[in-house]
């Protein structure tokens, strides 16, 4: 009977030996008794029968010997059982690890770092880039953008949405959307300002998403002036309304108006523009209305669409181009360079970060490779010193395969240990990443350690183990001549090829390190340049916050203007406030709409010439002072620029240079395009440029109008004055200290209006470069790790070489070599693989860093300074790493060295 599997794998030999003995003894007894019974049936007496049977069986200690032979046989069988063999190898490996704790610690630590960082970045890549978007059949969902010269991605206007949707052979559905913010007053907690999305009835179908509770908007609800309804995201419904299942059909209050909740959407649902940062938790019907030609020139909608079945993106793009061509013929709103593009939604969401993440993944893989090379080198050194052990094993009959398997298992055990520690490290890194929210990655919510990550961790651990495990094995498949090894410790010939192999590893490590460090240097310089760009305003000591007086309470334009004017007056009276102003947008955190405008008295536009356009900002007095925008010419806004005064405007330098090159702009009169604000405004001043959208984009022509004079051409009752503004408050002391007093003031002024996004301007500026900073920091960390590992590797190999050549050095010293010469000799021996590696690495890096160009700001991919920094750092560190063992070589006592030979 075969023992159960676990017994065969793990049992201690004594138990099974006893069992085998017992069984053999039972078999012998059976034999003798049965024979005795046969003899008795032939007529012998019981005693005679037993005696005869025993005699026939064999004389002496035959039984004993049989039992022993049975035991030995079972042992031999066990030894042929490969599973047992592997278990023994693992036990042996673990014992070996315990016996050399420093070595084990070094290897495990190196592997844990390399594998752990790799797993962490892989999880990020997997979550951000590979997890599919929360839409049905996400590869069929696309985004549609207009493009104009200077504006590669521009919003659509209302009639364009219908025009593009008209070709049903290209798109199964087209849905426009916008977002806004709302003050929510019902539910648990204080009044809260949340992001909201305006979506048409068709959007859920385009996105392939269904409400968890309730229903989508109906067609009646999605018409202008339709009933006020809303949908909520599930996690917001839980947080604010206690997951009340009866909320369907119940009203909630937002912006002082009542909206009936009709549906709850899955928490993972997002509008395409909202995968990183804030996202809409409330959805209202878009109520687009019938196509209205009057709105053709006002572009404010984003669009997502679903491809028609069996249509490729290229085909959809072609059909869209046909629609655009038709539009251009029918209307003069479109110049010849206007067009529309279809982009797969995946590219839209992930495109910007893809390159950076792949770069990080490449860097961290380099670090892992260097770590492997180091561990391989360490194992090679250890394999040398185990020559005797291997010789003995071969002599007593272990096949070469057995020995190779044993070495591989030792490497795998080390790798598994390092991999397990690395997994823990990766978990910690990921937790830190998501909690600290260091960087605005899309789909951060999709990053976690799931089955795929574990599979990757297992695979990479295995590969790592094989990679460095093969190194000592490669040494072994040379001639393992037991006799030589047994004679004395090591043989010279064997060591030479071991040293060569380790030097090759060093060259590889240095090449990889050059690439990693060059990338790090490039990224860091790029970030430094970016961070030093002057944004055009002073960001210190400025507090910002958004708010919006609800139309229900402030229905007219004059009430909105009065609201802000009085609020600002009160704010200026607060102690610690140096100046206060409001604006329709704040740099580096919102976008401005652009408008065409016309210059009074300018020659009429030629055909095909573009109408002048400018980003438009509605500001109150005090805004320029708060941000310390420099005034170049003329004057800034004052409190006197009210409704009853002449309408004024300010422009920035870029606009002045672009459209008023040959004449002074101050005093000229302009008129904004569009049907809404048709006043003729006099330019009273020119202010400095602001990098509004991104620090790495040049400033755009901008026009500022006075908020107190906005929408003067529309009736007051329309309430069309810009309602949602951001306050910019310059403080004398620490801005954070004024947050509480300002909130108090706001509560006293109007308790139903919450303040949103309260941030200091310096935080906003830092946040705008956070991705670049994050990438630079990580690359520096990886580059530093690569540097350290490479230095350790160089140190270890040179120490080894010194130890190996100690006899030769002793001879040289005895023959009169001075210590300086010895040092130089050993340093040269240590440095030449370094130099080869550096050269190879520079060549590869020069070709390879081109892929980084898109991520770099004002730094070329082959920037020589970065290369120089990387090379010189590595050279210096390698020299240092070589110097210590070389010095030790010089202190070798020739007598001792020669005697040991």
């Amino acid at each position, binding site marked *: 009977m075969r023992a159960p599997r676990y017994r065969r794998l793990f049992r201690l030999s004594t138990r099974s030996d006893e069992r085998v003995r017992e069984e053999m003894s039972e078999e012998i007894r*059976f034999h003798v008794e049965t024979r005795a019974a046969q003899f008795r049936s032939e007529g012998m007496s019981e005693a005679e029968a037993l005696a005869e049977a025993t005699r026939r069986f064999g004389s002496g200690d*035959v039984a004993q010997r049989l039992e022993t032979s*049975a035991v030995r046989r079972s042992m031999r069988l066990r030894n042929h059982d490969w599973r047992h063999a592997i278990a023994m190898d693992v036990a042996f490996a673990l014992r070996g690890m315990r016996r050399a704790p420093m070595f084990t610690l070094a290897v495990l630590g190196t592997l844990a770092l390399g594998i752990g960082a790799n797993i962490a970045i892989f999880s990020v890549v997997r979550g951000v880039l590979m997890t599919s978007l929360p839409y049905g059949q996400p590869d069929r969902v696309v985004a549609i953008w207009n493009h104009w010269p200077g504006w590669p991605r521009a919003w659509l206007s209302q009639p364009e949405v219908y025009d593009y949707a008209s070709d049903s052979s290209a798109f199964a559905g087209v849905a426009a959307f916008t977002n806004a913010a709302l003050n929510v007053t019902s539910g648990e907690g204080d009044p809260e300002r949340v992001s909201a999305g305006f979506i048409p009835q068709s959007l859920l179908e385009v996105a392939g998403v269904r409400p968890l509770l309730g229903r989508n908007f109906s067609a009646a609800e999605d018409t202008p002036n339709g009933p006020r309804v809303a949908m909520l995201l599930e996690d917001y419904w839980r947080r604010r309304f206690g997951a009340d299942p009866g909320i369907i059909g119940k009203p909630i209050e937002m912006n002082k108006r009542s909206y009936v909740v009709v549906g709850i959407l899955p928490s993972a649902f997002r509008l395409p523009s909202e995968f990183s940062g804030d996202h809409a938790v409330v959805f209202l019907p878009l109520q687009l209305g019938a196509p209205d030609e009057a709105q053709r020139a006002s572009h404010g909608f984003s669009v997502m669409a679903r491809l028609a079945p069996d249509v490729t993106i290229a085909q959809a793009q072609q059909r869209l181009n046909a629609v655009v061509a038709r539009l251009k013929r029918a209307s003069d709103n479109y110049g010849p360079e206007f067009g529309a593009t279809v982009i797969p939604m995946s590219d839209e969401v992930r495109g910007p970060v893809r390159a950076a993440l792949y770069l990080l993944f490449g860097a961290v893989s380099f670090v892992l490779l260097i770590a492997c090379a180091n561990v391989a080198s360490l194992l090679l050194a250890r394999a040398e010193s185990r020559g005797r052990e291997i010789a003995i094993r071969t002599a007593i009959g272990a096949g070469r395969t057995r020995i190779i398997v044993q070495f591989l298992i030792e490497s795998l055990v080390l790798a598994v240990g390092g991999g397990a520690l690395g997994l823990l490290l990766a978990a910690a890194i990921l937790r830190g990443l998501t909690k600290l929210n260091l960087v605005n990655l899309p789909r951060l919510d999709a990053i976690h350690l799931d089955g795929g990550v574990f599979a990757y961790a297992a695979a990479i651990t295995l590969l790592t183990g094989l990679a460095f495990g093969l190194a000592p094995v490669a040494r072994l498949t040379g001639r393992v001549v037991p006799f030589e090894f047994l004679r004395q410790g090591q043989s010279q010939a064997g060591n030479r090829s071991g040293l060569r192999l380790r030097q090759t590893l060093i060259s590889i490590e240095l090449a990889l390190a050059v690439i990693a460090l060059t990338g790090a240097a490039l990224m860091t310089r790029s970030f430094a340049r970016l961070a030093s760009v002057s944004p055009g305003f002073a960001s210190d000591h400025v507090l910002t916050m958004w708010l919006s007086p609800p139309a229900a309470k402030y229905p007219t334009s004059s009430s909105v203007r009065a609201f802000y004017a009085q609020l600002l007056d009160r704010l200026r009276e607060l102690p610690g406030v140096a100046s206060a102003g409001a604006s329709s947008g704040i740099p580096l955190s919102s976008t401005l709409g652009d408008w065409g405008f016309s210059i009074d008295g300018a020659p009429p536009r030629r055909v095909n010439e573009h109408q002048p356009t400018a980003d438009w900002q509605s500001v109150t007095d005090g805004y320029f002072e708060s941000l310390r925008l420099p005034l170049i010419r003329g004057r800034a806004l004052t409190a006197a620029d009210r409704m009853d005064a002449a309408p004024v405007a300010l422009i920035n330098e870029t606009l002045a240079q672009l459209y008023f090159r040959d004449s002074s702009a101050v005093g000229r009169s302009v008129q904004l395009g569009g049907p809404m604000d048709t006043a003729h405004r006099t330019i009273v001043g020119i202010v400095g440029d602001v990098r509004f959208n991104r620090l790495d984009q040049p400033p755009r022509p901008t026009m500022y109008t006075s908020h107190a004079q906005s929408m003067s051409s529309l009736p007051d009752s329309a309430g069309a004055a810009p309602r949602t503004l951001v306050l910019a408050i310059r403080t004398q002391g620490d801005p954070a200290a004024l947050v509480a007093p300002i909130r108090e003031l706001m509560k006293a002024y109007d308790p139903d209006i919450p303040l949103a996004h309260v941030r200091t301007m310096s935080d906003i500026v830092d946040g705008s470069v956070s991705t670049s900073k994050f990438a630079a920091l990580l690359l520096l960390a990886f580059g530093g790790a690569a540097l350290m590992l490479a230095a350790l590797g160089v140190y270890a190999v040179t120490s080894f070489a010194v130890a190996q050549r100690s006899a030769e050095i002793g001879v040289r010293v005895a023959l009169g070599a001075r210590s300086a010469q010895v040092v130089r000799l050993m340093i040269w021996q240590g440095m030449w693989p370094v130099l080869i590696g550096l050269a190879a690495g520079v060549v590869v890096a020069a070709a390879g860093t081109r892929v980084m160009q898109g991520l770099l700001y004002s730094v070329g991919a082959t920037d020589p300074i970065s290369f120089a920094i990387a090379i010189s750092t590595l050279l210096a560190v390698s020299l240092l790493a070589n110097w210590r063992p070389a010095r030790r070589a010089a202190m070798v006592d020739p007598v001792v060295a020669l005697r040991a030979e």
Partner: protein
Amino acid sequence: MPDNLTLLKGTLDVLVLKGLSWGPMHGVEITNWLETRSDGSLAVEDSALYHALHRMEERGLVLAEWGLTENNRRARYYSISAVGRRWLASESAQLIKYAATVTSLLRSRTRLA
């Protein structure tokens, strides 16, 4: 007692395998079969049989399993394996040829025939 022919080395294995080729047997059955079929002229020490069985089990020529006899006693049954059958076929052919050659030589009346 008839003369006991001492077995030439290695032939015990072949004989045991031949006996097992008709079905599994336990140790006593094998001994009985050998004695019966050879009319008692093959003298096999029982322990030698077990040594042979152990050898063959290690080489994979026989398989062993505990079973129950007709008297419901526990006994170790040996059966021939596929490898064992192949080995039996080749070895017995060789042995028979060897025996025939030796027999023919020893029976020759003159030096040449």
